[in-house]
Each structure stands twice: as C-alpha cells, then as structure tokens.
C-alpha cells in the first residue's frame, strides 16, 4: 500500500559537486569525513521513510542533524540532490516551477520556528496570505481566515499586528495561516521550540486536540524527546544527516537502535512521560460539604457507580466519604456529612511520578486525589486507570532487561 508521503533514498549535499559526496556516503563515509575531504556539507544522507495519512510523524535529532533540511526537501524549499519524494503517488522532485507552486498551495502548508509572520500585515492578513496568493475571493478568504483564527483561539485579534502579540500568540497566527489553507499536509519545523515551556505545553495540547478534529498529515520537527513522545504517532530519529531509527514512541524508548538513541532516551525520565496528570481520570461526581447530606452523596455514588466520593468545601478538596458510611448515616437521620467525612486520604500533585503512585494505591482504601496548588481536585487515580497506562511500558521494559 502506498502512504501519504514516501521518501526514498533522499540526499541533500551542500556544495558544487554533490554527486561525489553521495558516492562517498554510499561507501560508508561519515559526514565529518566528507566535510574534511571535499568541503561538502552533508545535510541529509540516504533518507528513506514514510508518513501515513492522518498521522503525526516527529523528526527528531540534535541541532545540525539535518531535520530542517529534510523537511524543506519535502516542499522543495531546498532542492534535494538525489532521491524521490512521493506525495499522493506524485514525485515532487520532478515538478517544474509552476507545478511546484500549485502543489504547495494544494498540499503543503508550513509552520516555522521563529513564526515567520509578515510584520506589515495584520493577523488576519497574515492568515489570509496563502488564500490571497491563490486569488481566492476576498469574502471567502476572510471567512476562512476568521475560522482558522477562532480555531486557534485568536478571535478578536484579527486587526492587531504580529509585533503586538506574545510569542505564543504569534505562533498561533502561524498555525492559523497554515490551517486556513486547507492543505492536507502540514510541515512544522520546530514550531514550538522558541516558546517558553508552559506555553509550549499548551500549544502541544492544542495541536493534539486540533489534530483530533482535522486528521491532517503532519511532519513535526523537534529536538526535544519529550515533545516527540507526546506528539508523535511515530518518530524518526536523525543523526549527522542519517536516519538512525524509525518507530513508535515505545519502540524508541524500549529498543533504542544504537547508543546515540539510547543516550537520547536516557535523558527522558519515564516519570516525565507518565506522571499523575497523565494517568488520572476525571472525577465522575463530587459531593459538596455545604449542601449535600448523606442521601445526596449516596445518590451521586450510585449514579456514577463508585464506592466512595470526594467532598468539596469552599472550592477546595476537603475529604472523602464511603458508600457504607453514607448508608449508616442516612439511617441515623444525619442531615450533613460532618460525622462521616474522612479527611485522611492521599493527595498528590500533578507532577508526581507514576511509579510512586503504585505504592500509594496499595496502602490506601480510597482513590488517590490529584490536586493543584489551590487544593482543588483535578482528577482521581484508581488502580485500573494507572495499571492500564503503565502495563504496556512495564512489560516492554522487562523484555529489554
């Protein structure tokens, strides 16, 4: 079966005589050797990989490993020295200038590391750019731009200029500019690398939720393994122009193809990959200390089919009540939860390592509560949800040891 994008034996050599350098790559010489002997810079060497329709493929590697060059060969911002780039069965490397322009307009949008917004155009005009180039009717392109802007949460900022926005918002414009185009492939070159960590995480979440709706084919460049693990359906790892491994996040974490990959992986903490926040589930029901009595609490537990329920007081998490206690209290005729609420339970913050949660769950009668800095309940962890998320990884870990 053919994939959305298929890249075959792709080379990019910077310098006047690329063929020489390609021969040397075929003879097994490294990028440094070739540089020393011929003064040619190997950007991408013999890359073969594919991207499936609707997936996010992350290309990862250290700075200088050839990621940007690779992604620019896909839309030919950089012309490859050799090899094929098949998109929807068409070889992009064979297109002439005008065909290439039309192909880019139809299939390939791009988001850049430093946003690359046009400073003299408003947010809306930036978003409309791709459509304007295609001479789309002004009314229609305005409509599409507005839709894209509201998708990325920038409704109301249309008439601002990029310089008036924060970095995170600027990159939202970059994203909207790509989305407005309706191209089926989105190339993202370190799109979030210039953002500070908190904003960056927001943008990652947002990309994932957008992707749920859009199902575009995305090639995402990153030098950050955590980001790659979070976003990538599959990951391609590059080193010195070569692809050293290709696979799912699990493949890469558990079966590093070589020392370089292993080194990369070592730096990711498993607990970062899985923390309390990532394994928690939404509390199905919560009781309110000020208004709910034992009967109300019971009804809620019944409704959610749970055997204990967390109790909130003044917006904060206060305690927990079990179904058994609630039945007793109801029979006694208690009007409030005061006598039965248990304030001794385990609460953790969202960054707690998943591995530590196991021990906690073993000693606790209740689910574990995940609370934020304001002591508000964010989610609960029950044995089932934690096990489900961890088991695959555990098994694979044991296999490799």
């Amino acid at each position, binding site marked *: 079966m053919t994939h959305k994008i298929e890249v075959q034996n792709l080379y990019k050599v910077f310098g006047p005589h690329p063929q020489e350098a390609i021969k040397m790559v075929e003879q097994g010489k490294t990028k440094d050797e070739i540089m020393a002997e011929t003064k040619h810079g190997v950007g991408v060497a013999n890359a073969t990989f594919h991207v499936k329709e609707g997936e996010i493929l992350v290309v990862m590697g250290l700075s200088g490993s050839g990621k940007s060059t690779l992604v620019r060969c896909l839309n030919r911002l950089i012309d490859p020295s050799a090899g094929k780039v098949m998109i929807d069965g068409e070889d992009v490397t064979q297109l002439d200038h005008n065909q290439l322009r039309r192909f*880019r307009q139809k299939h390939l949008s*791009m988001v850049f590391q430093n946003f690359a*917004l*046009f400073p003299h155009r408003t947010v809306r005009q930036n978003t409309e750019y791709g459509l304007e*180039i295609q001479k789309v009717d002004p009314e229609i392109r305005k409509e599409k731009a507005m839709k894209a802007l509201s998708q990325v949460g920038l409704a109301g900022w249309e008439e601002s200029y990029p310089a008036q926005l924060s970095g995170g918002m600027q990159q939202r414009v970059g994203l909207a500019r790509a989305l407005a185009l309706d191209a089926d492939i989105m190339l993202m070159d370190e799109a979030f690398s210039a953002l500070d960590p908190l904003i960056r995480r927001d943008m990652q979440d947002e990309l994932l939720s957008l992707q749920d709706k859009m199902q575009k084919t995305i090639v995402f460049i990153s030098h950050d393994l955590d980001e790659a693990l979070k976003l990538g359906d599959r990951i391609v790892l590059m080193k010195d122009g070569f692809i050293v491994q290709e696979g799912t996040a699990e493949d890469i974490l558990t079966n590093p193809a070589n020392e370089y990959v292993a080194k990369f992986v070592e730096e990711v903490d498993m607990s970062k990959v899985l923390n309390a926040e990532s394994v928690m589930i939404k509390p199905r029901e919560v009781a309110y200390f000020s208004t709910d009595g034992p009967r109300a609490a019971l009804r809620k537990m019944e409704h959610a089919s749970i055997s204990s329920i967390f109790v909130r007081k003044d917006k904060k998490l206060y305690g927990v009540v079990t179904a058994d206690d609630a039945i007793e209290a109801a029979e006694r005729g208690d009007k409030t939860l005061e006598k039965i609420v248990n304030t001794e339970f385990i609460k953790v913050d969202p960054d707690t390592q998943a591995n530590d949660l196991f021990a906690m769950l073993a000693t606790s009668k209740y689910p574990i509560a995940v609370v934020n800095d304001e002591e508000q309940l964010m989610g609960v962890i029950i044995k089932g949800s934690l096990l489900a998320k961890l088991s695959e990884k555990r098994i694979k870990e044991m296999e490799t040891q």
Partner: protein
Amino acid sequence: MENFSIPIGEAIEATIDFLVEHFAFLTKAFSEVTGNGIDILVSVMMFFHPGVLIFLFAGIAWFITKRTGIALFTLLGLALIWNMGLWDPTVSTIALVLIATLFAIILGVPLGIFAAMSQIFYRIVMPILDFMQTMPAFVYLIPAIPFFGLGKVAAIFSTVVFSMPPAIRLTCLGIKQVPNELVEAADAFGSNKWQKLFKLQLPIATPTIMAGINQTIMLALSMVVIAAMIGAKGLGGEVWKAIQRLQPGKGFEAGLGIVIVAIILDRIMQRVGGKTRT
C-alpha cells in the same frame, strides 16, 4: 611610456560621437519630454503668488510630516528666501530637483529590484555603482553636453546619472535584507516571484528604499548646483554668478537658500520613509 598611451579618451570620444550620430532621436525625445516637464512645472509654480505658494508648501510639509516644527521651518525658510530676492531661482531649482529625482526613481528602483533578483546583474551593476560614486561630480557634465547642448536638459541628464546610485543600491539592499524565513514562508505558500515582490519584499524594504530616495534627492540637489556650470541656472546659477563677480555676500545668500531647500526636502522625506514602518 607616453608614446604608447592607451587610447581611453579617444575610445570614449568615439563612442559618444557614435551615440550622438545614431541615437539623436532618443536624445531629442528626452530633451522634449524633460524640457517640457520643467517648463510646465515651473510655470505652474510661478502661477501662484510666492506668498501663497510658501503657505502651500508649509501645508504640504505639515500634511506629510504632521510636525508643526517642520511646517514652521518651511514657512520661515522659504519666506527668507523670498525676502532675499531668490524666489525665482529657487523655484527653478526645486523643479529641476523634482524632475531629476523622478527620473532617478523611475529608473533606479526597478534596477535595484532587478539587481536583488538576479545575481549576475548584481555582479555587473555593483562595481559600476562603486565606480560612479568615486567619480568627481562634474565629470558627469561632460557627456551631457554633446547630447543635449548647454542648458537645463543637460543638467537634468547628468543629475539623474549622478543621483541614481543610492536608489539602486538601497532598493537592492532593502530587498536582500528581508529575513530569509519570511521569504521561505512566502515560497512555502506557493507565491510566484511577483507576488513575493509586491506582497512581501517591497513593503518590508520600503523604509530602506525611502532612505535611498532621500539620498538621491540630496545628491540631486548638490548636482543641480554644480550643473549651473552648464547652464542649469537656479540657485546654483546665483552662486556661480557670485563667484565670477566676486560677490561673497550674494554667494552666501544663494548658498543659504540651497541649505534651506535641502533641509526641508530631507525632513519631509525622512518622515515619508519612517511612516511606513509598523
């Protein structure tokens, strides 16, 4: 050594002779157009009473710059010129400068764009510009005479040639300075080269191009003064007369007039360039 002198001078003369002989229709057309252009511009300006025109200029200055100071300077400066009895030569100088600048922009900006787009043309044109800038200004007067004879048209011709380099150079620079990532973005979305030029490169290069045009105007002004030697008249002509008649006072007054015109044009052009920045 002198026996073997390389015939550079002869070659140039032969070339000019050839051009004069075979391209007379072109020089004639240029003469007609510029000659008429200047006459019309001068007679339009002369149609107004100097006082009215001075207020008009001050109004234009205020409209473009929105600075009361600049408008006031225009008003007082031009009033002083009028008071010194230099109004007619000033009008003639302004007309010459405007026409010459117009030609320099019409030719220079497209050449600059072309130099930015074509590496080969860039390699050819830049050394020529360097050469032109080191050449003493009045050398440009010499080839103008065989083509156009003495007078305003010859003055305009040499002024255009002399003042065009910054327009070419800074247009080219402005376009080349557009950040590569922006050019990549324009390409990635499938722009053709005209769309890229008009929607991205020129807007971003505008402040730099305006700086080039400002320099062009200043050079044009200085050349128009020098061109008095071949009959451009105007303020330069007044200076020239004063030198020949040994009248330092008159010479200084005309010089002051030139400075006032220069400052007014400079301030106005700076605002035109600065305003387009966002």
